[in-house]
C-alpha cells in the first residue's frame, strides 16, 4: 500500500469508525492502521536457518466510554470492519465502566496533524537477498574451523512500519520508521563448559533506526574470528571470582541495566499497580518524585523520543502526543516518570510525556520505555577508565538477566569478563555474575566514560502487558564504573 493512497483511503475509513464510536457514547476514540514489512534472514552452521519476509496489515479502534477503555482489532480494512470494531470496543467499554472507581481522564492535547519519517541511507529491502545471505554465509564460515565450536549463527532483521493515526479530537498523523539489525553468535562446548560469544550484542545483534548502512558498518565478518577465539578461550578460562569488587560495565550490559532498573520501574502505570499480575510493581512510589536519590551525582538518565537512530524514535506516540525529551534522573535525583495521557492525569501533570506505544495493530497502546539513556561522563575513553581501575573487573555482553517484581534486587550474568591489571584487560574470566539493589548500585557509580564512547544499544524484545506485547527502544550509554559490587 503506498502511503498516499493509504492516507486518503484510511482517512475515510477512520471517519466512519470514529463517528460510529461517538454515536455509541465514546468521549474519545482513535483508529490506527498499521502496516509492517519484515525481512529476517539467518544462517546456522553453513545452512539457511531463517528466511522469513512478508507484511502484516490491520486496523484497531480504541474508545473511552464513561471513563473505561475498549479496544478491538482485525486484519481487515473494510468499512464494515471499521464500524464493527468501533461497536465492539464501545460495548466492552460500557460494560466495564460501572466498575471503575477512578475513570480514565486524558491529559489535554491540541489536534496534531503531520508526518514523520525516520532517516536512512540505504533501504535494506532494496538490497538483494542474495547479497545479504552472502554476508551471513561468509560470517558463518569465519566462525567455524574448530571442532569445539558446536553452534554458530548469523542473522539480519529489518522492519518497516507505517502507521496512520486518526482521533476523534481531530488528529491525523502518518509515520514511517525503518529499523535494521544484525549480529552473530558462536558457542563452544568442552571442558564441561558451554560458552557463547555474541557480536555486537545478544538478542540477534544490535538494532537501530537506520538502513542497511548499519549492517555494513557492523562488519560482521571482520569480527567473527575474534569472537570465535574468545568463545574457545572461555572454555578454559578461570571462573570469575566472587566477593566485592569494583565493576566496569560495557555498553551493551549497561544498556540492559538501564532498561531493567530505571526504565520499567518508572512506567507510571506500573507504579500504580496496573502491571502487578504479570511483571509486578515498582519501588519508585509517587512520593519519591523530585527528592529520591536514585544514583550518584554523575548519574543523568534522559528519556528522548527524538534520539536519532533510537528504536523508539517517533514524531508522535500512539496517543498522538509529540515526541519529547525529559530527565528521569537528574544529577542522581529522581525527577520524572514515563507517562501517557491517562496516567499523566493520574500523576497530576498538565500533559503526557508521550510514552504510549502499541505493538503493531493488534493490541491497545500502553506506557512503554522510550529511548532512555545514561548521559556521558568525564572519564574519557574506556582505556582511560581502565588506567584508573586497577583490580576492577570489566563485564561485557548480556547473557542472563533477572530482577524482582519491585525492580530492586537484580542479578545479571555476562558472556565474558576480564580482570583489569596495569591499565588493561588482563586475565580472562568465565561465567561472571553480579548482583545488587537498584538505588545502591546507581549510587555507587563513580565514573562514566565520555561522549567518545557513547553508543546506541537497541532492545528489540521488551515484553509487557497481557496479552504480552513486544516493544523496541534504545539505551545509549558509555561504559561506567560501579564501586564495591557483589560478584557471585
Amino acid at each position, binding site marked *: 500500500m503506498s502511503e498516499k493512497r493509504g492516507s486518503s483511503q484510511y482517512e475515510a475509513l477512520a471517519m466512519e469508525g470514529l463517528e460510529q464510536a461517538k454515536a455509541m457514547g465514546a468521549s474519545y476514540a482513535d483508529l490506527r492502521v498499521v502496516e509492517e514489512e*519484515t525481512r529476517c534472514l539467518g544462517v546456522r552452521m553453513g*545452512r*539457511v536457518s*531463517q*528466511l*522469513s*519476509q*512478508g507484511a*502484516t*496489515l*490491520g486496523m484497531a479502534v480504541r474508545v473511552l466510554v464513561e471513563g473505561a*477503555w475498549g*479496544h*478491538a*482489532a*482485525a*486484519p*481487515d480494512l473494510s468499512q464494515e470492519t471499521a464500524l464493527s470494531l468501533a461497536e465492539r470496543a464501545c*460495548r*466492552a*467499554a460500557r*460494560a*466495564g465502566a460501572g*466498575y*471503575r*472507581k*477512578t475513570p480514565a481522564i486524558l491529559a489535554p492535547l491540541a489536534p496534531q496533524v503531520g508526518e514523520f519519517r525516520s532517516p536512512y541511507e540505504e533501504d535494506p529491502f532494496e538490497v*538483494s537477498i*542474495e547479497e545479504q*545471505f552472502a554476508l551471513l*554465509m561468509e560470517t558463518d564460515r569465519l566462525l567455524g574451523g574448530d571442532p569445539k565450536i*558446536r*553452534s554458530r*549463527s548469523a*542473522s539480519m532483521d529489518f522492519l518497516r512500519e507505517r502507521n496512520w493515526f486518526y482521533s476523534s479530537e481531530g488528529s491525523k498523523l502518518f509515520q514511517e520508521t525503518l529499523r535494521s539489525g544484525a549480529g552473530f553468535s558462536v*558457542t563452544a*562446548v568442552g571442558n*564441561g*563448559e*558451554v560458552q557463547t560469544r555474541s557480536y555486537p550484542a545478544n538478542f540477534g545483534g544490535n538494532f537501530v533506526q537506520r538502513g542497511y548502512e548499519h549492517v555494513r558498518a557492523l562488519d560482521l565478518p571482520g569480527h567473527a574470528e575474534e569472537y570465535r577465539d574468545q568463545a574457545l578461550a572461555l572454555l578454559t578460562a578461570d571462573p570469575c571470582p566472587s566477593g566485592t569488587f569494583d565493576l566496569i560495565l560495557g555498553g551493551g550490559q549497561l544498556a540492559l541495566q538501564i532498561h531493567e532498573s530505571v526504565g520499567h520501574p518508572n512506567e507510571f502505570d506500573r507504579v*500504580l*499497580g*496496573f502491571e502487578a*499480575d504479570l511483571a509486578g510493581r515498582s519501588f519508585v512510589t509517587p512520593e519519591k518524585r523530585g527528592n529520591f536519590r536514585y544514583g550518584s551525582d554523575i548519574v543523568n538518565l534522559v528519556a528522548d523520543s527524538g534520539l536519532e537512530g533510537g528504536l523508539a524514535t517517533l514524531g508522535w506516540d500512539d496517543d498522538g502526543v509529540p515526541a519529547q525529551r525529559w530527565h528521569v534522573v537528574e544529577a542522581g535525583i529522581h525527577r520524572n516518570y514515563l507517562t501517557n495521557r491517562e496516567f499523566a492525569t493520574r500523576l497530576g501533570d498538565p500533559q503526557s510525556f508521550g510514552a504510549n506505544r502499541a505493538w503493531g495493530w*493488534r*493490541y*491497545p497502546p500502553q506506557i512503554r520505555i522510550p529511548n532512555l539513556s545514561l548521559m556521558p561522563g568525564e572519564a574519557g575513553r574506556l582505556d582511560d577508565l581502565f588506567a584508573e581501575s586497577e583490580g576492577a573487573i570489566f563485564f561485557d555482553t548480556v547473557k542472563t*538477566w*533477572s530482577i*524482582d517484581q*519491585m525492580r530492586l*534486587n537484580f*542479578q545479571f*550474568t555476562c558472556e565474558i569478563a576480564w580482570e583489569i591489571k596495569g591499565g588493561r584487560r588482563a586475565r580472562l574470566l568465565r*561465567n561472571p555474575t553480579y*548482583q545488587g539493589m537498584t538505588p545502591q548500585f546507581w549510587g555507587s557509580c563513580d565514573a562514566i566514560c565520555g561522549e567518545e564512547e557513547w553508543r546506541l544499544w537497541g532492545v528489540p524484545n521488551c515484553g509487557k502487558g*497481557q*496479552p*504480552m506485547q513486544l516493544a523496541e527502544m534504545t539505551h545509549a550509554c558509555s561504559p561506567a564504573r560501579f564501586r564495591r559490587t557483589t560478584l*557471585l
Partner: protein
Amino acid sequence: MISRERAREISDFVFAASPAAETEVILSSERGNSIRLAECAPSEQNALEEAQVWIRVVRDGKQGRSTGTSFSETALKRCLDQAWEAAALAPPVELPPLESESRGEDGGISAEQAEELAEHGQETKLAQLASYLRKGMEEGLQLTGFYETRGASTTYATSAGCFRHGFTGKASFSSTAILDPGGAGVGSGLAQTSTLGDAQVHEVGRVAISKAKASRDPKPLDPGEYPVLLEPRAVGDLLMFLAWAGLGARPFLDGSSFLSDKIGEKVLSETLSIVDDVWDPRLRGLGFDYEGQPTQRVTLVEEGVARAVVFDRPTAREAGRETTGHAGLQPSPSGPFPSSLILSPGETESAELLGVLDKGILVTQLHYTNLMDPSNVTVTGLTRNGTFLVEGGEIVSPVQNLRFTMSLVEAFSQVRAVGREGRLVEAFFGGATIVPPLVLDAFHFTSATEF
C-alpha cells in the same frame, strides 16, 4: 477461525497459482477477547481477530518463504510471488521433501469448542468477575489480573498432498491480590478445551485473596539453603526451563543440553518422569506439526533416567533418528520444542505435603526466572505472591521474597515428595504444562528482598 473446507479452498488456490514444484501453505486464524484488571476494575479490554498465512516454495533446490495477514486471493498471490522471488536468490537449503500424506489424527478440540472459547464475551466475563471485584473493593485489596479466552484454527497443507487442519483453544484467568504492606497472593485457572465456569473463576479469586491476607507483613529471612514445597505454578516455570535448555534436539545435538550424551543415564530423581503429550485430554494440542508429521507422545525422562528429546525432520536426519513430530516453521533456527509437557504425579496427597516438608519454605510462584548455564540448567529467579516459613509441618509466618540461584538438575535430583495431583498451569513466558507440587530437599536462596 476458518473451517476445514475454507482452509482447503485457500490452500488449493495457492497450489494452483504456484509455479513451484513443491509448495507449502500454513494458515492460522484466531479469535478471542480479554480483560485486564487493576484497581478492582477492568483497566483494558481487547477483542482481537487474527489471520496469518505462511507460504514456502521449493525452486531448483532452493526455498523461499513469505507471510501475510490476509486470505484474499490478491494477498495470497502477492505472498506467493514474494516467496517465489526469494527462492531464486536464497542459497540452497538441505531440507526433506514436503510431506505427501496425511497420517494420523489431527488432534486438538472440536470446532464447536473453539467457537465457544472465542465467543465467551467480555460482558459474560465481567458478570463472572463481579462478586470478586466487589469483594476486593469492600476489603481494601487491590485486585489485578487477566482473563482471556480464544479459539484458533491451524492448517498445514502441501502441494504434494498432505492436508491437516485442527482447532485449539484456551481459557485463562490469573489474578494477583495485593494487601500492603507486603501482602500479595496469586490465583490462576487455565483450561485448553472449555471455558472456565463460575466456580473456577471464584476459586481463583478466593486463593488470591487468601494468599494476600496470609502474606501481609512478611518477616525477613536470611538467604541460605532450605527445603521447599513448590506449588504447581513454580514447578511449571522450572520445568519450562528444563525444556528450553535441553529437551529439544537442537541443544541436544549441539552438546549444550543436560541430556547430551546421557540417554539411558540417571539425570534426575527416580521419582520424576517427564513426557510430552499433546494427546492428554487436558491439553488437547494439535496432532500434527509444521512439517505435517504426526506429533507423538514422547517419554523424555522416565523415573529419573534420560530417555529422549523431541525431533523434527532436519534434526532427526542429523541424528540418524525419526522425527517425533515437533517441528516449528521450517527452516527453524532453534529446532523442535516440546510444548505439551507433563510431569508425572506422585504418591503424596496435597494435604500431606506440608508435613513432608516439616521445616522449610512454601513457594507459591516464581518471578523472572532466567537461564545462566544450560549444561546443568543453572537458573536464577525470585519467589513471589506468597512465600511462607513452615515449621513442624505448619505455616508459621509469611517471609520476604528471596532470590534463588541453582542448578535445576541438582534441585530435581533431591526430591523428597511428589504430589498426587497434577495441575494445568501456564509458565511465565507462555506454554501450558501439567505438573504436581514438589517437595525438594535443598533450594539455594542467594539473596533477599525487603518486601
